[in-house]
């Protein structure tokens, strides 16, 4: 009896498996995932049974770093299912090293034949070349700067650390430091340190507080839209058609975004925060332990904010994923650009992250650091 291959089916929630076939399901065990990062996270952190291959649905390929990371985790082949294959799809597949491409005209036999062949005849990769691609290389000058600045800062700030630690312990029981897993450069998960600013056990109360989220749209707006619209379908000449309404691509994006809910979670006047917590948050002192992360090399001083898993996994599948290709950092473009005005949309925020990823240099980093200093003196309670 041949082994049944384990194949990840990514975007299982949005799309049913597009090649329903008895024979295929006999040979393949389809493991559903919502997105690529969940696959990586499950293999890396949760230690699920290894996967042979992966099929994802989408109009655009994921960044090559994800494919390399998957290869590193033993997932081969990575297969892209798209609506209709074009020369552009093929070129993109080639560029990001996707191993196979299928569309609506591919039959289940095609899929079965190709996946089986690819699994049974893995390509020989040069392991060193592979490892080099996975690890994002931080420029030496950036790393040196990080080490020097963070160690000096840690040394100079040690009295502050001591005082804050005592204050935290005096107000509420629990650990002085708090960590959460964050996704940084190249989707690497690491422990992200902060001073504890909430009562212990606060994470479990997060769900109850979702309605207070600043980034969620106003209730009525959402209501009126979902009442009049069902899921729109793609029509001709770039317009999208829903029951009783026509919309442009721009409108469609807004529509989808509202349906999916806000990606970032940030809450005004959060009741879970302690008094000391409120003070250290307003002064950004709670962020200081990240200097330790910088010294360790998890992140840099300037870079894109490393995201918690539930945020990271929502923004990997589309064009915003580029942000993960740049170093993760304490301060970055979005923090200095608009901090304190409280009105930046998550779209804008992610655009800024991408912007940084596209073009970063040591000079730009220095500029950002100088701009961060006034931004730190912000007053808003976020």
């Amino acid at each position: 009896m041949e082994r049944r291959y384990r194949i990840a089916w990514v975007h299982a929630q949005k799309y049913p498996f597009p090649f329903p076939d008895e024979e295929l399901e006999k040979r393949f065990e389809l493991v559903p995932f919502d997105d690529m990062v969940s696959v990586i996270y499950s293999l890396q952190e949760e230690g699920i049974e290894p996967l042979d291959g992966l099929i994802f649905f989408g109009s655009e390929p994921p960044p090559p770093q994800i494919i390399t990371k998957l290869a590193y985790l033993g997932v081969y082949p990575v297969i892209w299912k798209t609506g209709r294959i074009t020369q552009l799809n093929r070129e993109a597949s080639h560029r990001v090293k996707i191993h196979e491409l299928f569309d609506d005209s591919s039959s289940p036999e095609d899929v079965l034949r190709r996946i089986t062949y690819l699994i049974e005849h893995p390509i020989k990769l040069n392991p060193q070349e592979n490892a080099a691609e996975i690890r994002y290389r931080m420029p030496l000058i950036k790393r040196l700067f990080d080490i020097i600045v963070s160690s000096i800062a840690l040394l100079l700030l040690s009295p502050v650390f001591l005082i804050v630690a005592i204050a935290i312990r005096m107000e509420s029981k629990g650990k002085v430091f708090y960590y959460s897993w964050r996704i940084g450069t190249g989707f690497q998960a690491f422990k992200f340190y902060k001073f504890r600013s909430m009562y212990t056990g606060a994470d479990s109360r997060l769900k109850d507080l979702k309605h207070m989220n600043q980034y969620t749209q106003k209730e009525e707006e959402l209501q009126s839209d979902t009442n009049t619209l069902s899921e729109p379908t793609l029509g001709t000449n770039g317009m999208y058609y829903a029951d009783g309404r026509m919309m442009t691509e721009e409108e469609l994006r807004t529509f989808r975004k509202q349906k999916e809910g806000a990606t970032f979670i940030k809450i005004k006047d959060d009741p879970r925060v302690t008094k000391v917590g409120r003070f250290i948050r307003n002064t950004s002192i709670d962020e200081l332990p990240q200097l330790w992360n910088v010294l360790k090399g998890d992140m840099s001083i300037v870079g894109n904010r490393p995201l918690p898993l539930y945020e990271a996994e929502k923004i990997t599948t589309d064009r915003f994923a580029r942000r993960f290709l740049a170093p993760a950092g304490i301060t970055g473009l979005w923090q200095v650009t608009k901090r304190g005005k409280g009105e930046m949309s998550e779209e804008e925020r992610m655009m800024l992250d991408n912007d940084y990823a596209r073009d970063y240099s040591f000079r730009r980093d220095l500029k950002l650091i100088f701009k961060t200093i006034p931004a730190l003196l912000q007053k808003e309670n976020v």
Partner: protein
Amino acid sequence: MEKTLLAVDDEQSILMILDFVFGKKYKVVQKTNGAEALQWMHQGNLPDVIVADMNMPEMNGFEFILQIRSSGLYRDIPLIMLSGNENTADKIKCLNAGADDYLIKPFNPEELEARINNIFRRMNR
């Protein structure tokens, strides 16, 4: 840009002839069976045209056609079979599986070239 011709045959002399005839116009890549050819393609190489033999060890020409035509990446690559097997049933089987043409050995390289050019003309390349 120079086009790539992938020649797949276990017979060394055929590979040499193909290289000699097409070497000036194409970059000729030589592989001795279907599995080797596929491995080369899986490493990220996309030939512009493939000329393949039928009877080869490891993977024969027919299985090779099926793999190429099942793949969304490779299914539009022109593929011409070159075989000593004159059996019409086999010929039809290959054409039905998606071979663009089937030439019988011994073959005239000029005819092969003409057929390849015609395929490109129809594809507007």
